[in-house]
């Protein structure tokens, strides 16, 4: 029985084939076929011919001109175009209409035989064809590019009669992503001669068509020849749709499905627990009573007058036992096969037909579905976005007939399939069965250029199921290659299965006509996606990683290794040093101003500070109008006070804390060790002690110019009054700390340096200066404290500026005293010269302007001498410089004491006064002036 139906389909199909040559140039037919579960298959078929001569001359009558032009332009011999939607449920509905010859996979499918000698020419024409068709059918066929185009070898066979296919090429493209909808139907209808105004085409309504559970629109153009030379070009337009009767019968006024009231609920009476009060609802009413206008929303408007009168427009396939009521004027013609009947409606009147329930309930309501030759399902295996597998289940229902077919896959290039993992296995058996595959044609994908094409010619033994599986890998794309909805996934076109006419056919599959064609559903493949918002971030991060490695290696390649304390300063410290010394320049000039104010006329500026005069004037200029000296001095003092309290200054308070300690530690006894205060009985014993315990030793004693005691006194002064390490110049708050430092660090050394040269012979001196002159900057003189002394302008680039600046503060503080006197008692500086203490003091204050030990020393000598009375100068003149220094040191110590006492009380005062001023803007502005050295 079922075989019979499929046979019928095939018969009708080939009947049309043979009937094409009949004079009629156009005919159309609607074939209705009720399917189980209240589904209805309606297949419309329109066919029109044009003689090849007319076609070449361009005289189009029924054949659409717009399509004809495209064919002529693209040199197309045969063309097949499919728009499909939904899935054919073979399990329920059975065999496919037209044996699958008029359907396509989901989306759009196009294959054509193009006249071309070379592949390039074929591609060019293919491009023209796809572009033109996409314009004609409002479908994005122009996206069928090289990656979606394949050249099938075994699967497709020409339907038309071609003299020779020697110089033609078959190209096949598919767009699974395309969504078929109404705007594809409209151009489809415009191709018909009757334009959907009359005839069966008037039933086609976009809403109903795309509401169906499965539909496929097909356009087939093929040349057909009855005799040589007498050829026509035939265009066949087919629309197959499976309508859900219940859904279509749903009334217009409430299209939303609602649960029917209990009394109208269709119950499944077959269920055992069905009773008067329990109802198992049927999801599908099996009864097939409907009217044409219910199904299609409108009656059929007459017939198309152009159609061939011999072919009746409407046919339905139900048992003859079942009555069909039609509108009057309709001629019903029952075919002899007792399962189909056709109707010839009144050409002008509307046509409607109603299918009633069978008169005798025992009669079959509908024809059972015809069994297809093969069932096929395809699905993905595995999970994750890295790799996966494809599994196709092929079931051969016939108990004793082997099915031979060609399985064709066209996969996008980013699915990298591993052919060596492909295996065919009969379900239920453990190990694969190679014998099932007879022939494989495989064209691997090329990235971004070509998709995978896989054609397998295989067979399924009777009544058995075969699993075809293979693995693939998902590749990650450039982020510009992802579609806007990247995470939705990529559609994989349906696999095309072509069952060959004769299972035992020869090897040349290309020559065999297809007996049955079916397509699997299309799949959705999700690829790994990058972060689309990241490009610049990724560029930056990766570049940074690379740059780090490169920088590290490159630096090691080009730099040389030195000890940590060698070579020039690291860049940052150099920078800081520069900054500080620049500020120092300012400060120096401030001192300068003050000196000139403090001792009008009397003060002799030391030669070192000569170059700084312009700086001072510049200072004036910077401060606006050159002010009278008096306010300046007062301002300077004020700043000085601020300076003493500047929070960044550690030494100022260290002094206060250290004052008691060194107020009594200043007196010098030659027999006391300067490092541990160990009392020896003599100077020599002391030196011996120091040499043994502290490995202290005075170099070049042979060439000393002064006696050891002087040197010792000098060191004593450095340690006890300046609380500074004799070797590295580190400064501590208390003398004990300094000694502790020196002992622990082993700094109990005495190095020959610029300023200690004075203790040595001039020739040695000369030698040393000669030596130092060769150094890069001969202005630079070093103290043991690592301070670099240079003349002002070049005084830059050394690390210990901080300590020196603090030293200056310490020295500068007292110097404000005389100026202060001046400010409140003008006569005080008139008798400066008469008052030795104040004069030395003030002169000392002048000398102290020289910012560091060394020039303070040398300058002290000259200025102090100059300050003394002529008599005293002469009295001292005979002494050697160190001895003069020793004498003057006595003054100095008292001066220091007085000065400290004085500064202490002023600080107490200012602490009260400046508590708030600390945060005032003015204060902050002025601080930097004193920070530098």
């Amino acid at each position, binding site marked *: 029985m079922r075989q019979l139906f499929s046979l019928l389909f095939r018969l009708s199909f080939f009947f049309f084939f043979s009937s094409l040559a009949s004079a009629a140039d156009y005919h159309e037919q609607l074939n209705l076929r009720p399917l189980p579960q209240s589904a209805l298959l309606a297949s419309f078929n329109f066919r029109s011919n044009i003689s090849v001569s007319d076609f070449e001359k361009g*005289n189009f009558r029924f054949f659409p001109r717009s399509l004809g032009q495209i064919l002529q332009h693209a040199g197309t011999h045969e063309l097949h175009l499919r728009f499909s939607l939904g899935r054919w449920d073979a399990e329920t509905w059975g065999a496919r209409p037209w044996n699958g010859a008029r359907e396509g996979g989901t989306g759009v499918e196009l294959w054509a035989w193009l006249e071309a000698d070379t592949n390039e020419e074929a591609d060019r024409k293919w491009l023209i064809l796809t572009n033109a068709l996409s314009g004609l059918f409002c479908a994005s066929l122009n996206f069928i590019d090289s990656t979606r185009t394949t050249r099938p070898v075994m699967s497709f066979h020409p339907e038309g009669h071609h003299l020779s296919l020697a110089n033609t090429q078959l190209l096949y493209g598919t767009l699974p992503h395309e969504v078929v909808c109404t705007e594809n139907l409209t151009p489809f209808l415009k191709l018909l001669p009757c334009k959907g105004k009359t005839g069966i085409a008037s039933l086609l309504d976009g809403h109903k068509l795309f509401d169906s559970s499965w539909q496929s629109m097909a356009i087939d153009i093929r040349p057909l020849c009855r005799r040589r030379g007498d050829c026509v070009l035939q265009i066949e337009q087919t629309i197959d749709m499976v309508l859900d009767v219940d859904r279509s019968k749903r009334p217009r006024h409430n299209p939303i499905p609602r649960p029917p009231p209990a009394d109208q609920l269709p119950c499944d009476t077959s269920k055992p627990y069905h009773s008067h009060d329990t109802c198992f609802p049927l999801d599908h009413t099996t009864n097939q009573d409907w009217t044409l206008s219910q199904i299609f929303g409108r009656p059929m408007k007459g017939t198309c007058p152009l159609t061939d009168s011999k072919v009746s427009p409407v046919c339905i396939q139900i048992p003859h036992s079942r009555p069909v009521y039609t509108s009057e004027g309709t001629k019903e013609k029952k075919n002899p096969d007792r399962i189909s009947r056709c109707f010839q409606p009144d050409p002008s009147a509307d046509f409607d037909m109603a299918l009633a329930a069978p008169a005798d309930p025992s009669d079959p309501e509908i024809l059972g579905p015809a069994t297809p030759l093969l069932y096929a399902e395809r699905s993905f295996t595995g999970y994750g976005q890295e790799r996966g597998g494809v599994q196709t289940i092929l079931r051969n229902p016939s108990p004793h007939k082997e099915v031979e077919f060609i399985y064709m896959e066209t996969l996008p290039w980013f699915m990298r399939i591993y052919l060596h993992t492909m295996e065919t296995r009969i379900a239920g058996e453990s190990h694969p069965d190679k014998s099932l595959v007879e022939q494989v044609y495989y064209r691997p994908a090329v990235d971004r250029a070509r998709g995978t094409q896989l054609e397998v010619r295989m067979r399924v033994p009777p009544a058995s199921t075969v699993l075809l599986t293979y693995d693939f890998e998902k590749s990650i794309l450039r982020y510009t290659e992802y579609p806007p909805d990247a995470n939705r996934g990529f559609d994989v076109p349906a696999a095309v299965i072509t069952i060959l006419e004769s299972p035992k056919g020869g090897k040349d599959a290309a020559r065999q006509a297809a007996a049955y064609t079916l397509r699997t559903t299309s799949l959705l493949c999700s690829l790994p996606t990058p972060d689309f918002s990241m490009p610049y971030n990724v*560029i930056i991060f990766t570049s940074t990683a690379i740059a780090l490695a490169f920088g590290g290696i*490159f630096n090691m390649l080009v730099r040389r290794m030195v000890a940590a304390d060698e070579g020039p300063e690291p860049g940052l410290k150099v920078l800081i040093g520069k900054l500080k010394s620049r500020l120092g320049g300012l400060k120096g000039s401030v001192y300068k101003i003050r000196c000139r104010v403090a001792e009008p006329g009397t003060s002799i500026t030391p030669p070192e500070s000569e170059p700084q005069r312009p700086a001072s004037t510049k200072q004036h200029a910077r401060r606006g109008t050159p002010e009278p000296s008096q306010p300046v001095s007062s301002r300077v003092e004020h700043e000085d006070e601020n300076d003493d309290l500047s929070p960044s200054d550690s030494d100022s308070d260290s002094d206060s804390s250290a004052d008691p300690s060194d107020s009594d530690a200043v007196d010098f006894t030659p027999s006391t060790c300067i490092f541990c205060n160990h009392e020896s009985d003599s100077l020599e014993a002391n030196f011996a002690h120091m040499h043994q315990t502290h490995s202290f030793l005075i170099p070049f004693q042979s060439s000393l110019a002064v006696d050891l005691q002087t040197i010792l006194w000098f060191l004593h002064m450095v340690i006890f009054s300046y609380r500074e390490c004799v070797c590295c110049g580190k400064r501590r708050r208390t003398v004990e700390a300094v000694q502790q430092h020196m002992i622990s660090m082993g700094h109990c050394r005495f*190095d020959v340096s610029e300023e200690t040269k004075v203790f040595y012979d001039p020739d040695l001196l000369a030698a040393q200066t000669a030596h130092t002159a060769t150094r890069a900057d001969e202005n630079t003189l070093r103290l043991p404290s690592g301070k670099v002394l240079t003349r002002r302008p070049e005084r830059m680039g050394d690390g210990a500026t901080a300590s020196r600046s603090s030293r200056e503060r310490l020295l500068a503080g007292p110097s404000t005293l005389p100026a202060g006197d001046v400010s409140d008692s003008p006569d005080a500086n008139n008798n400066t010269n008469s008052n030795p203490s104040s004069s030395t003091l003030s002169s000392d204050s002048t000398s102290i302007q020289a910012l560091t030990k060394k020039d303070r020393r040398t300058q002290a000598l000259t200025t102090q001498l100059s300050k003394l009375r002529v008599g005293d100068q002469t009295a001292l003149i005979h002494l050697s410089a160190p001895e003069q220094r020793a004498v003057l040191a006595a003054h100095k110590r008292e001066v220091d004491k007085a000065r400290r006492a004085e500064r202490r009380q002023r600080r107490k005062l200012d602490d009260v006064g400046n508590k708030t001023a600390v945060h005032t803007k003015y204060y902050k502005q002025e601080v930097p002036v004193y920070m530098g050295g």
Partner: protein
Amino acid sequence: MTTQQPADNGAAPSATNVISTSAVAASATRKEPPPEKPSDVRRRSHIILSFWLIVLFLGLPIWWKTTTIYRADLPLQEMLDWSDGKACRPVFPLRISIRAGALQEQEAQNLLRLTQHALDDLNDFSGHHLRLQLAAPSVTESHDPDSVLTIRLAPGDATTATFDPHEPILDITYPPNAVPSHTASSSPLATYVAGQLRSAFAEEQATISYLLSTNSIPSDHRPQGLAPDVAQSLSKRTTRSLRYAPTYHLTFSLFTSGSLPSSWDIERAIAEYMKPVLDVLSPIHNFTIDTQVQLYATPGVQSQVLNKEDLSSFINAAEWPLSPSIGGAPTINFVIFVGNQTIAALGPDADPSRSWLIPQWGAVYLLPLPADTAHVGAATLKQPLLTFTSHLLALTGAPQSGSLPLRLSTLARIRSADLLLRASSTLGSLARLALALPSISIPPRVADGVATTIAHLRLACDSLGTPDGLRHARVAEAEAERAFFEKSMVGQLYFPDEHKIAVYLPLLGPVAVPLIMGLLNEAKAWRRRRKQRAEEAKGKKSE
């Protein structure tokens, strides 16, 4: 340190003071590193050199090659000259031969001279002037090809002028007494001939001068005065006619609102009524033809009487399959609509016409037929096709007056001038485009196109008014269009510079800094070394 320092201090005194003191001094402060071995110095410079060699000799060329946009150099100035009309001065010398068999040589010459004078007096457009010449009496055939028009002077009883319908020949008869004497400074006959000629070529002259004036041709060789009404009618005609194409695609469509008639004998009708004109036009245009029958076609307006504004919307573009041909040739649609609609009379006295012309698209003809005609015969199609023929001439832009051959030769000249100007302006806009968008790429194909365009323009300009002038102009225009609409030029995406910085900087910046610093330090060190060497050399000299 504590251990070794005293040791070398102790050792120091015996040693020379310089060394020891320097060591001692250094121990207190930043030491000078020991002088670097020259081998190390050389090695470092080699390393830096190696990196820089890679950067310079591989990096920079690759950067250049991979990131620059190819811009073929175009003769911009020349192109602009063309578009400004500086490069070519369109001149149409038209030679008109006079055959006066009845006159003696002497009289003919005299008449010729007088007519020429009359013409020159009438003519006001330097670019377009007529030159008369006597046809060699030996020439027997009626019309010699290299002259535009031949005037046959024949004695008659009155002065009449008639155009030969098939050849560019003007027959003029004159009364015997009209022949001017030698001494006559003017002659009515001459003035008459001149007037005839002028009226014959007036339209062509006007059209060409209009074309020139619409394009940016410097005014020196532009016609002085173009009457505004003339200009307006000309502009209407030019807008109505299709732009020139070597091939036109003619589509004849039969539309009916019902199912009948469903066939027509269009093939024979075309062969009979339209082919001759197409053949005559063939030196200027080729034509491809297709036909179709469309049933159940409802027009855009349903009203029985169509008035002026309905005509434009009569064509139901949404439903009627009148898609232009995909071959690239512009399509001219000729639609015959079977229906008995009538067109409202445009004027009070004008008879209601059945057809109208849709500018640059085609023409529609309303054909009333009895309801049951299934087949439309060729005879029925005669009137529509003749109408279409005239419409076709209008659509191709041929002048309306004058005999057909004369109109066609005029059409050729107008077209060549048109093409010439069009190609020039295309060149100009291409040049301006290239100047305006420095980031657009100019592939070599464009340069070739421009070169050929200019070459052919030159040829066309030299041979204006002759058939190969038209041919060259045609090639030039096609090339110019191709060059202008080059895909890869349009496809060039624009990447702003600040983004380029954001792409380059993260990698190249950090990598370049150490490279450059290394190079600078190396250069500094090298200079110092050289100075030292110089000083040493000086020191040696001084010793």
